[in-house]
């Protein structure tokens, strides 16, 4: 985690945010825009704009690195539960770094971008020094980690994102969900993946820091695009049922508990060759004490830390994130409960300011995901 005594860092887009009247707040050691000014700004406006049009996000605080060398992929796999040997070139995959007890150290995206050897990795801002330090110290053979600290990361998300970006490079329209390419965009070498963390279609675009402000402002010239702060980023990912590391998952929670077992890929699961396999195998065999669920909450929003009780009032777990859902107009939350209380439709209570309120276990995502899947090519 970041040291509070260190001065706040700024992304290459700091000046661009201030110029647009952003309210800057500390986040993971960076001064980041939480929301923008003006009649189009504010968390609710920015949230809705992203769901209906296209939102532009500065995620340059996140950690970017490449891992190269003949041993890059096999060495990288030792730290996570993903099958990257089986990942096709040009594809990206979500995974989890695990400790030896099967706890989640971070969640991440790693890709084999077409046009580039090795892996391109993006990790959470608050964890990047720990993640990259662990990799640097532990990668063996010729596997080499290179931090890309001179690159910015920009996400464009929303139903109009693809149309907007196709004007800048038509090749982007040809990418499917979780495709990853290194290509020329805005006159620079960019790593582009068709992914994001809002539940919408869109792209994450890594560009040189020196070009970031020009590219940011160029994308914003399109009326379909508005800048979106961390406030709406959080409410968007909550609606999409996506966990926020450090809140909805941490080093004590396993992938099974966090309902992220899909990230434990088949080859790794069958081989049992990932960190913490004994705990995770036991949990998958039934020895599971708690699991992350979605909750629909009646009454006041239930925030992180609120207790979850069973229908009889016995405390059985805690909310890990929660708040209003601008898209649904109701309050939603994620939290951990025993598997016995995790079945969809289970009536529970959340304790807000000392008072029990009704809550119900519901499916996640709360709002349907709208990722872009390329149509299947007809057989020749």
């Amino acid at each position: 985690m970041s040291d509070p005594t260190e001065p706040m860092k700024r992304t290459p887009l700091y000046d661009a945010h201030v110029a647009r009247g952003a309210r800057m707040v500390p986040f993971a050691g960076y001064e980041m825009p939480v929301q923008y000014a003006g009649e189009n700004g504010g968390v609710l406006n920015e949230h809705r704009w992203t769901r209906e049009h296209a939102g532009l996000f500065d995620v340059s605080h996140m950690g970017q690195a490449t891992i190269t060398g003949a041993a890059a992929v096999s060495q990288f796999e030792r730290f996570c539960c993903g099958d990257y040997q089986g990942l096709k070139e040009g594809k990206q995959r979500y995974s989890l770094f695990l400790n030896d007890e099967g706890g989640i150290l971070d969640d991440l995206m790693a890709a084999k971008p077409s046009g580039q050897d090795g892996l391109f990795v993006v990790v959470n801002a608050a964890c990047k020094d720990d993640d990259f330090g662990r990799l640097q110290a532990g990668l063996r053979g010729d596997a080499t980690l290179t931090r890309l600290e001179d690159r910015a990361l920009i996400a464009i998300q929303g139903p109009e994102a693809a149309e907007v970006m196709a004007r800048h490079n038509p090749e982007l329209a040809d990418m499917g969900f979780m495709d990853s390419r290194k290509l020329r965009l805005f006159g620079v070498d960019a790593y582009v993946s068709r992914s994001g963390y809002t539940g919408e279609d869109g792209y994450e675009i890594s560009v040189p820091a020196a070009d970031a402000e020009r590219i940011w402002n160029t994308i914003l010239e399109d009326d379909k695009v508005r800048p979106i702060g961390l406030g709406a980023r959080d409410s968007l990912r909550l609606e999409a049922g996506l966990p926020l590391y450090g809140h909805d998952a941490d080093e004590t929670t396993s992938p099974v508990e966090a309902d992220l077992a899909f990230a434990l890929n088949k080859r790794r699961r069958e081989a049992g060759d990932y960190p913490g396999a004994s705990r995770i195998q036991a949990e998958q065999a039934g020895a599971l004490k708690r699991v992350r669920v979605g909750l629909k909450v009646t009454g006041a929003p239930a925030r992180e830390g609120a207790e979850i009780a069973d229908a009889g009032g016995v405390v059985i777990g805690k909310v890990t994130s929660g708040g209003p859902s601008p898209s649904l107009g109701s309050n939603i939350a994620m939290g951990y409960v025993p598997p016995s209380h995790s079945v969809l439709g289970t009536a529970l209570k959340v304790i807000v300011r000392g008072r029990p309120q009704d809550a119900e276990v519901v499916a996640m995502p709360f709002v349907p995901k709208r990722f872009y899947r390329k149509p299947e090519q007809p057989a020749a």
Partner: protein
Amino acid sequence: MHYTKDHEWVRVEGDVATVGITQYAADQLGDVVFVETPEAGKAVTKGDGFAVVESVKAASDVYAPVSGEVVEGNGALADQPAIVNEDPTGNGWFAKIRVSDRSQLDGLMDQAAYDAYLASL
């Protein structure tokens, strides 16, 4: 109108104080999505939280600028919390409180003092 350092405002008519949050507080919160106001009859103590206002991001207490008994809570805010952003010092009031000790009003800021306080932030 009088003000607290926590950005509540107070307007006194007779022995009843109408209480709300200031424009500055409403702007700082951003979009208000939930408000909880007290029921009539509830005893409130100066400095204690007597209402709750929530933005998308967080819940904040609203502190009682004076002690007394709640005469009326603004129930309209439950259905239309955005009134707090639109008209914080008018229709966005939180509660009317029958003041038990008028001398507590002396410790509050007047408009000039509050303006100077905002300028110092």
